């Protein structure tokens, strides 16, 4: 019973991390640097949709407890995150002639700028989408699972977006070019692919997904200027665990990291979950160590599989 509930919250949390980690991995594979501004790109998406939702309102109708206006706002958040990322890429990253470490440090600076702008605009206090908060879904309660329709919406939307990306990567011309470029940029260029344009699309898709992740993070929790940055370390853990540069690895890594993070409370109540041990048995590890445990598991996996779950052999 307890286990099911924790798995459910793990799935919800993972969905948000998946949306964040795909973009990070995509940008790494094509632009070739670790973008520390990615978390704050999520924040930008979340706050944009906050403003957009305030402007368009509910628009009547509702899907999974979410008014239709929220989906319009979601779209606005995705577009804004993509636009901000592309503009940053054009103005800053593209013109920089430094190695990947220089780019990484630059992106940390960009992250501060995004966050500062958000905070100047909205203040440091948390805000919340003006959406009726929901109680848990009744018919799931007997199974000990306490999730709301909003949580279901987060998981379903993430699944739709991820499937869409999969179709795009595998079956579209753009996807083939993106994969070609991730594999070998030089070869892609000489074989006639316009790598600049592909790079641009990569930023659009990566940042757009991050924006959607930010919107759902805001729905899951509250909106604060630090929301994306606070999640970024876990997203990095997911991407590295999955094999950096691999989109499918990032998904797997995100699922694993999110699950571990949310299953940590079980450690102190193992007796309730495991058979053949006393009810009161538990490891003295509180849930505040969730992030630490996620990182320990990341390190352990990397010790045995340095390229990550889905990464190519080094």
């Amino acid at each position, binding site marked *: 019973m*307890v286990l099911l*509930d*924790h798995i459910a*919250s793990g799935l919800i*949390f993972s969905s*948000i991390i998946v949306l964040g980690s795909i973009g990070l991995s995509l940008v*790494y594979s094509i632009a*070739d*640097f*670790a973008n520390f501004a990615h978390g704050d790109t999520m924040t930008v998406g979340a706050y944009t949709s906050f403003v957009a939702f305030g402007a368009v309102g509910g628009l009547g109708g509702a899907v999974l407890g979410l008014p239709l206006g929220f989906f319009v706002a979601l779209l606005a958040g995705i577009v804004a995150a993509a636009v901000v990322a592309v503009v940053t890429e054009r103005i800053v990253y593209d013109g920089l002639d430094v190695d*990947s*470490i220089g780019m*990484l440090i630059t992106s940390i600076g960009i992250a501060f700028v995004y966050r500062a702008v958000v*905070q100047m605009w909205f*203040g*440091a*206090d*948390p*805000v*919340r989408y003006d959406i*009726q*908060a*929901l*109680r*848990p879904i009744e018919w799931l309660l007997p199974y000990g699972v*306490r*999730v*709301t329709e909003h*949580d279901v919406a987060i998981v379903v939307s993430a699944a739709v977006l991820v499937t869409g990306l999969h179709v795009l990567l595998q079956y579209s011309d753009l996807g083939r070019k993106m994969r070609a470029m991730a594999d070998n940029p030089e070869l892609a260029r000489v074989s006639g692919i316009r790598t600049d344009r592909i790079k641009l699309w990569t930023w659009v898709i990566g940042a757009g997904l991050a924006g959607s992740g930010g919107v759902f*993070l805001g729905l*899951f*929790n*509250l909106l*604060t200027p*630090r929301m994306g940055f*606070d*999640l970024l*370390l876990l997203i*990095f*853990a997911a991407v*590295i665990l999955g094999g*950096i*540069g691999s989109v499918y690895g990032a998904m797997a890594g995100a699922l694993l990291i999110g699950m571990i*993070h*949310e299953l*940590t*409370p079980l450690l*102190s*109540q193992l007796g*309730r979950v495991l058979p053949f041990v006393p009810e009161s048995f538990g490891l003295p590890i*509180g*849930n*505040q160590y*969730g*992030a*630490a445990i996620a*990182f320990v598991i990341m*390190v352990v996996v*990397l010790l045995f599989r340095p390229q990550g779950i889905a990464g190519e052999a*080094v």
Partner: protein
Amino acid sequence: MDDIDRRTLLKLTGGVGLAGLAGCVSTTDEDDGGGNDGGDGTDGSDGGDGGDGGDGTDGGDDTPTETPGGGDGGSGPYEIGMVDSLTGSLSAFGERNQRGVELALETVNDVGVEGRDLDIVVEDSESESQGGVSAAQKLVNQDGVPFLIGSVGSGVSLAIYESVVQETDVVQLSQNSTGLGLTDFPGLLRMSPTGRTQSVALSNIIADDGYDTVAVTYVNNNYGQSLADAFVEAWDGDVAYNQPHDQDQQSYSGVVSEMNSSEADAWLFVTYQAEFATIVNEIFSSGYEAQLYGADSVSGSDVLENTPEGSMDGMKIVVPSAPVEEDNYQQFATRFEDAFDESPTSWSAYAYDCVITAALSIQAAEEFTGAALQETVRDVTRPEGEQVDSYEAAHEILADGGGVDDVDYQGVSGPIDFDENGDPVGFLQIQTVEDHEYVGTGFIES
């Protein structure tokens, strides 16, 4: 090339992770120092500071210390410093503080301090110890302020005291820290009463409500741990759950579900507004039913605005309160409402009184140095002397040649009256959430 990048990236990311972990470790150490008695042993050298406190009370003997060239011969404003939480998780407090400070400066500069103005240099602590210490270093070492108001978070105030102020003559007066550990540092003054009064009051209230089992969670820092420890000490019943949670997490569902598994019906929270708002949302969306209790830091408009209507009804909170029936508080409240279109909280009143106390101690001191202010800062608010409830009246007594023992300033936040540990006398109000609003339902004195 690609391989090198990947490896370097792993190293860097690992480094960031380590830095995060290191942060956790140092926070825990600090908690121990402040919260447990064990910390006192290592702080034995502070006995000297206790002596300084004694000197403060002897200030009435009036042995003038004539240090030539005090550097205050000019006619420009007296400059003091303030470290405040302008950003970070305590920024709501910071904003209220700044409003109190603004009003206080207006009050002081209407009358003047020895014919000069008072000026406050405000630096941001980012609500973190590190930010607070560098802000204080800038104020004390670069600006050379002899009087430092700071800070909000107890861990931050203590870090500032231990790494910047302790070895100097600078007066540090915390505006909002309620952590219990600060009592062990007599040299560190504060305007808000110690949290121990809150813990004791909460244990009495919960017991009076008929609960014998309680689940407690607290924010993983000095403030949270010391209040939770004091609560457990005061509580006679069972504690079914007692765990910390970290700040700024994106999910607290683990904490909430563990509290539910503990099967206690009374849940006590010692945390901050942003964290508590998240927790309340998770309690609501998980459909848990429990009687909620909280320390003062979990109440505020951030929580009300960001939680569903009715999700906290019946919750009880104890809040250090200003003496709201007194005239001077009501005048302060009226001015505050005129200026900012909302009622003041006691946090603004504490910051207000910090500034007034600073101004009075400067007026009463022989010269504008830390050593001289140490002699006066405690006594201008203590009994013996005429009770006055405005800066103007207190200023008049001092300007007419009165000494520190001739004036007993009664603040808008309470009588102040610093004790030998640098703690003020305090009032607490019990607030109950009714129809998603905080309603005062009684007072407790300490």
